[in-house]
């Protein structure tokens, strides 16, 4: 293994003062601990979000029968979901998965963990603000959990919380649940702003010597762009939920026409945030795939600049496509035509990325490790999620499939098939660095294969029942004559979803077993080139010894003819000839 030069081999203890338990594990300002805290928060909430999904699925397959295990909670009905409880379950499933699982794990967890390590910084630009951003996020998590215990139940107006349904307590029968939903997302928005400012500042100002912008790994590009979207998009939601809360509690009428408000204003604000949000969820996963595919293909990423610029293009376009959520909302149909054009355009950078991932695999030496399998699953599932989006982009077709299960299938192919497989790939790939231990490969396969199979068996048939007309968010499909003939699909999907849930058990076992009993991880177990693999596993406080690494080349120098001994050249490896040889 080629020694990382002039960096980690240095020995000195840089200001090695011991921090107490509280400063190390709880109120830590170390980006690595904060990243782990975000990951644990996301993984914990994922259990809750997943169980809520299974409750929803049970009701759709076997309507109005007792949900096993729910009799303890819903004592009045013996475990049978009432329509209001059902609405709460799908509302909170989506809210939790989007705001408290995917965002904390990808943007919060991996953003925090990877940015300083991969650009060669000792920590974030504002470590205290970083700590505050986690604890503000944790407070938002507590507030969202509190909503389950208040009278009237939790928010039940959908994760989109369309006003006026969400704006007047009587319309849903939910009072404090929806208020807490607003307050929690407001608090989360404040925390996210702290985090995004931190990420942007760190990436702009704190890169190691030689780490030019176009030598940054693509996952850092993706997190950089995600942070910009977070900074600009989330405050719109933060303001909107404050306005909604004022409508509910202070008697304002932003969204309620009976007081002079405008219902569509909520939708414009929500989707102005909501569409960039989709890219906030998927861009980090795209970056993760762009990181893992080259490592296990032993090849430079295909079209590095095209990859970076297509992400910038996606970020820019994501501001002007949001109206495609509102084609049949009553918005001026001429505007719908404009949004159709921009939506079609945004498919192009996504296509460019897919083709470049294929180009990366082409001619490679592909190693089927567990992170690689998850990254390949990400690519193939993102293809399906991207292609199904074209149906909705076409305004006439959207008239029919808007608000059906087709869109439910589409969003799950993007955020589960995309973001969650990306998160799994990242967890398996960086686990050795983060926790200093290797994960178990057999358990990894036992997790990946059933997850991949049952994911598809769960979500692919949703396209079919969506085309058949089944609306989203209905309590009982059997109430509609035109849906009864396809009820067997709902049963099939629920069985698959239950098995998909069970498939996560090997992951939980692997995660905790490896934490204590996994083999010790070497510094660079995957023979990767980027900077985090030049720090010990796990990296100490401040990441490197006496000096931070110096960067001499791009991040994907695999199988370069320049190296005769190994098939990879770390970013810290100086060129053999005179300076200024490397390509990027």
């Amino acid at each position: 293994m080629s020694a990382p030069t002039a960096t980690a081999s240095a020995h000195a203890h840089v200001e090695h003062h011991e921090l107490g338990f509280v400063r190390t594990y709880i109120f830590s300002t170390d980006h690595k601990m904060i990243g782990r805290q975000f990951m644990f928060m996301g993984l914990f909430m994922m259990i809750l979000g997943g169980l809520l999904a299974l409750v929803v699925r049970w009701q759709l397959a076997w309507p109005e029968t007792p949900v096993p295990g729910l009799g303890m909670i819903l004592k009045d009905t013996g475990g049978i979901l009432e329509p209001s409880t059902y609405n709460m379950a799908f509302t909170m499933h989506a809210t939790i998965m989007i705001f408290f699982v995917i965002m904390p794990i990808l943007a919060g967890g991996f953003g925090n963990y990877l940015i300083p390590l991969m650009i060669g910084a000792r920590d974030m630009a504002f470590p205290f603000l970083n700590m505050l951003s986690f604890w503000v996020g944790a407070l938002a998590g507590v507030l969202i959990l509190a909503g389950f215990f208040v009278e009237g139940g939790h928010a039940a107006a959908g994760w989109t919380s369309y006003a006026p349904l969400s704006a007047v307590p009587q319309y849903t029968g939910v009072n404090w649940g929806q208020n807490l939903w607003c307050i929690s997302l407001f608090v989360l928005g404040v925390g996210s702003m702290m985090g995004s400012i931190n990420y942007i500042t760190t990436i702009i100002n704190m890169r190691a010597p030689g780490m030019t912008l176009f030598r940054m790994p693509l996952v850092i590009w993706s997190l950089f762009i995600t942070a910009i979207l977070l900074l600009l998009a989330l405050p719109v939601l933060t303001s909107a939920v404050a306005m909604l809360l004022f409508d509910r509690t202070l008697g304002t009428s932003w969204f309620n026409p009976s007081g002079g408000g405008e219902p569509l204003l909520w939708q414009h604000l929500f989707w102005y945030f909501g569409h960039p949000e989709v890219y906030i969820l998927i861009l980090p996963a795209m970056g993760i795939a762009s990181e893992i595919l080259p490592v296990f293909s032993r090849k430079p990423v295909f079209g590095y600049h095209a990859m970076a610029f297509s992400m910038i293009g996606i970020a820019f376009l994501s501001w002007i496509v949001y109206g495609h959520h509102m084609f049949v909302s009553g918005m001026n149909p001429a505007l719908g035509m404009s949004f159709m054009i921009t939506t079609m355009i945004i498919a192009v950078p996504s296509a460019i990325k897919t083709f470049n991932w294929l180009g990366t695999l082409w001619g490679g030496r592909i190693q089927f490790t567990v992170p690689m399998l998850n990254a390949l699953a990400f690519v193939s599932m993102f293809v399906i999620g991207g292609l199904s989006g074209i149906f909705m982009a076409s305004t006439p077709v959207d008239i029919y499939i808007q608000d059906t299960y087709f869109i439910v299938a589409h969003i799950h192919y993007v955020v589960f098939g995309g973001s969650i497989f990306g998160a799994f790939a990242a967890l398996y790939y960086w686990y050795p660095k983060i926790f200093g231990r290797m994960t178990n490969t057999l358990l990894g396969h036992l997790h990946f294969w059933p997850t991949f199979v049952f994911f598809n068996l769960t979500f692919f048939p949703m396209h079919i029942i969506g085309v058949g007309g089944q609306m989203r968010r209905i309590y009982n499909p059997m109430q509609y004559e035109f849906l009864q003939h396809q009820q067997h699909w709902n049963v099939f999907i629920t069985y698959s979803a239950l098995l998909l849930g069970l498939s996560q058990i090997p992951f939980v076992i692997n995660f905790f077993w490896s934490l204590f009993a996994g083999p010790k991880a070497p510094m660079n177990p995957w023979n990767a080139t980027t900077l985090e693999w030049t720090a010990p596993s796990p990296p100490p406080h401040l990441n490197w010894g006496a000096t931070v690494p110096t960067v001499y080349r791009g991040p994907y120098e695999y199988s370069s003819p320049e190296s005769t001994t190994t098939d990879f050249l770390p970013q810290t490896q100086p060129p053999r000839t005179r300076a200024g040889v490397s390509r990027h």
Partner: protein
Amino acid sequence: MLNWWLPENVSTYGQEIDSIFHLIYWITGVTFILVTGALLAFIIIYRDRPGRRATYTHGSTPLEIAWTVAPALILVVLTFLSVPAWSRIKMTLPESDLLIHVTGKQFNWEITYPGPDGRFGTADDKTFLDEMHVPINKVVRIQLRGREVIHSFFVPQFRFKQDAVPGRDIMQWFEVTKAGKYEAPCAELCGFGHSGMRAWIYAHTPEDYAKWAAENLKTAAGTPPAGPAAAETTDGKTEGKPKS
């Protein structure tokens, strides 16, 4: 032609939607097979074997240009094919002397016809709950409104969907080509009674419709069969409580 799980279409413009739908099926289907086929081929052909060394390349500008331009062209074509249908369905309003007011409320559709005087907003308006009668082969204009929250009037077999928004009147149209009884569910979450909120649309032959109208719309002020619903109010709060 294969129906691809779509319910039967019985409206004039539904065929246009379905044909774009089928076209996208083919485009995305072929793309999916090509991309996934390439992915599978690559991971089989280029799998790690002893002695194999990966090709060292950073990309190819001609390829980047090709796979930027090709999808862009396909999408431009798709956009141009979608514009006429969208424009005909949502941006134009064919002439018709039949206008029906549809108001979504928690959790019913109020279907209102002008009474014998042919005008809305008068005492002889006829309002039916969850029941609409229309003639086939004739443009039906409907004016949509939400009472307290947003609903969405969805008629799967007409390929019709439009949100009904409180505070604004939205004019839409459809033309049915086949007599029958069709379901019109609410497609936008509107509260705990959302599921099951649905109207029945009876599409009659012109003769049958004339007969139905004579019996139900032309009578002097009186009680229509389904019972009159409350006069339209703009105050959402009075309608806040659901029926059950």
